[in-house]
């Protein structure tokens, strides 16, 4: 299953190679032309014969860790790659470097802690990755300074329709884009699998600069916080309520014409749809929107619980509906039913 392969792939911001390889292999029968740029963006080019140039974007990178020094005891110090909450790190399993060396992020045992420590967040410099090395030299036989680490979470089913895994932000978006690229349309389609979104929306702008699209659709796996302890107006999105459309996020105000067309198509085809209801956090859409003389954009997301943590969750029904909605939108442009 593509979503499983993508979720389990090793691809922190700056080292997205494994994800690139999975995508080019999966799409080989459907895409004849690929471009790559100086940052590592992977762009599937499907030339068309008429109609506006459409760019679709999903980012390949995930949050992770980078080894910043090796202690003489053999324990590894690290820095965060992307926006990870310090509190999700303790007591987790990671894999490090090209050989995927297993490691654990441990913490002082509770028996050794003073009572007041237990209510405080363990500072980042109090956390180490333990790969079982006995000394610095021992560790250096397995990994090196600057190696990346990602969580070692396996993809799995909680039920027929609910799955768990790491990096659903934004491997779910990549999976949606891959499915869409298997179709054929009359307008030129550029499927941009972008890099380094998590560390500052870095890849999308340069990709858009080269492509010069007439409009763009960004596919994300987005915050879903419909949990006890969250106030209803803080949910952002609800799992099972359908693909989420962004009206505004920290980086962009989406184009109303695109939003309204998506709402219309969803209603006509009985696809449940919701608005992304929180505005914090930017997306690739912001960079694309501001490229050259401007590009109208919209963002469609699969709601994912617990993004930016070792394990997230999504509904395959939402996932399938997102694919459906995007395809309907492209068909609408193809048939001339929608134009800017």
């Amino acid at each position, binding site marked *: 299953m593509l979503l499983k392969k993508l979720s389990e792939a090793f691809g922190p911001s*700056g080292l997205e*190679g494994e994800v690139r390889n999975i995508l080019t292999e999966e799409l080989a029968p459907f895409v004849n032309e690929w471009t*790559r740029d100086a940052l590592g963006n992977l762009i599937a080019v499907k030339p068309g014969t008429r109609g506006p140039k459409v760019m679709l974007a999903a980012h390949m990178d995930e949050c992770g860790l980078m080894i*910043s*020094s090796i202690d003489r005891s053999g324990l590894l110090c690290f*820095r965060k790659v992307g926006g990870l909450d310090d509190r999700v790190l303790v007591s987790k399993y990671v894999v490090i470097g090209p050989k995927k060396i297993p490691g654990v992020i441990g913490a002082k045992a509770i028996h050794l802690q003073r009572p007041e420590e237990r209510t405080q967040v363990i500072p980042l410099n109090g956390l180490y990755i333990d790969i079982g090395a006995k000394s610095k030299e021992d560790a250096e036989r397995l990994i090196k300074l*600057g190696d990346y680490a990602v969580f070692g979470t396996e993809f799995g089913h909680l039920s027929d329709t609910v799955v768990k895994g790491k990096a659903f932000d934004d491997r779910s978006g990549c999976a949606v884009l891959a499915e869409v690229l298997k179709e054929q349309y009359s307008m030129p389609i550029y499927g941009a699998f972008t890099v380094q979104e998590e560390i500052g929306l*870095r890849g999308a702008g340069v990709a858009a600069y080269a492509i010069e699209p007439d409009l763009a659709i960004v596919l994300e796996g987005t915050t879903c916080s419909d949990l006890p302890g969250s106030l209803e107006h803080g949910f952002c999105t609800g799992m099972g309520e359908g693909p989420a459309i962004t009206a505004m996020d920290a980086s962009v105000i989406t184009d109303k014409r695109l939003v309204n067309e998506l709402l219309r198509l969803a209603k006509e085809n009985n696809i449940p749809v919701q608005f992304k209801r929180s505005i914090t956090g930017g997306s690739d859409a912001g960079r694309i929107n501001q490229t050259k003389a401007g590009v109208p954009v919209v963002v469609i997301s699969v709601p994912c619980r617990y993004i930016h943590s070792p394990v997230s969750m999504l509904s395959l029904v939402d996932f399938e509906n997102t694919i459906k909605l995007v395809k309907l939108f492209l068909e609408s442009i193809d048939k001339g039913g929608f134009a800017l």
Partner: protein
Amino acid sequence: MKRGGTDLDTKEFLKQIVEGTGVSGYETPVAALISKTFAEVADEVRTDVLGNVIACKKGEGHGKDPIRIMVASHMDEIGLMVTKIDERGFLKFTQIGGIDQRTLVSQEVRVHGKKDLLGIIGMKPPHLLSPDERNSAIKMQDMVIDLGLPLEEVKSLVSVGDMVTINRNFIQLAGDFAAAKAMDDRAAVAVMYECLKELAKLRHCADFYAVSTTQEEVGSRGAMVSTYHVEPHIGIAIDVCHGEMPGVPEQDTAPMGKGPNLAFGANIHPKVYERLVDVAKENNISYTIDPVPAGTGTDAWAMQVTRAGIPTGLISIPLRYMHTSVETLSLADVKASGKLLALFIASIDSKFVEGLLCY
């Protein structure tokens, strides 16, 4: 192309430019010094709309589209700007770039009005301070510059918006250590100068654009527009990084005197980094490395996402006490960085450049 006359010693050049004036947005005085000196060792020197000084040394490459390697070193320094002249002739001010307000107290400054005036940011003597006052840092909004002049004279010479720099000369310390203001990042301009001189002894096919950028301290603004204009195939930033000192974790600093520090990570193209390391090894230039998970906080961050994306690299000079008026470095590190840069440029051919897009 102007040649002739003996080239200036790099240390002497560095002394001249760090003592020069060039706060972000107002780099003209130091830009003039740099243009003049670079004109002796480059084929062409120009200035763009934002004041970036672009010196080009052409390579032997043939064909319509020669390889362009751009190096960015920022010539702007942090400083202050006059916001108001009060009723007694004291000056209120704000900062340009990130200044630690604690480093301003009891400093001599130069106010660049109609002419340069000496002033003091003073503070109440200890005799008049309460114990509480003595323990808290003074806020910039409560400081004033005292020019020691009557109001009318101040108003005739100084205006709102005038630039202010710290009055500090280059200080030679023991060995080859030296301290001055604006080592961040004029030491990097000196690296480019050293590189231009070294390149004269080497053969290179790429065109080398040594760009002294403006307004880095307020957001790498000079680098954005100069990179757009030069459209290089490779962009290298030269900046400073934190030199080791007690009280700071070792992983956040680089040792002094052990050569340039080379960064790698998302902001750096892996092949550019590898080539810098290979060239250093082959030529016995000692270096240190720094894994950087996201932005490097240098012009490299802006260069990398210009136009359709540019493969970038970063060479840093270890520096203590950054953003104070006594920034301290090892001159050997400056020279070694210049040599490494020249050898790197000489090693670049079209095969390497083509390989940069193969992911």
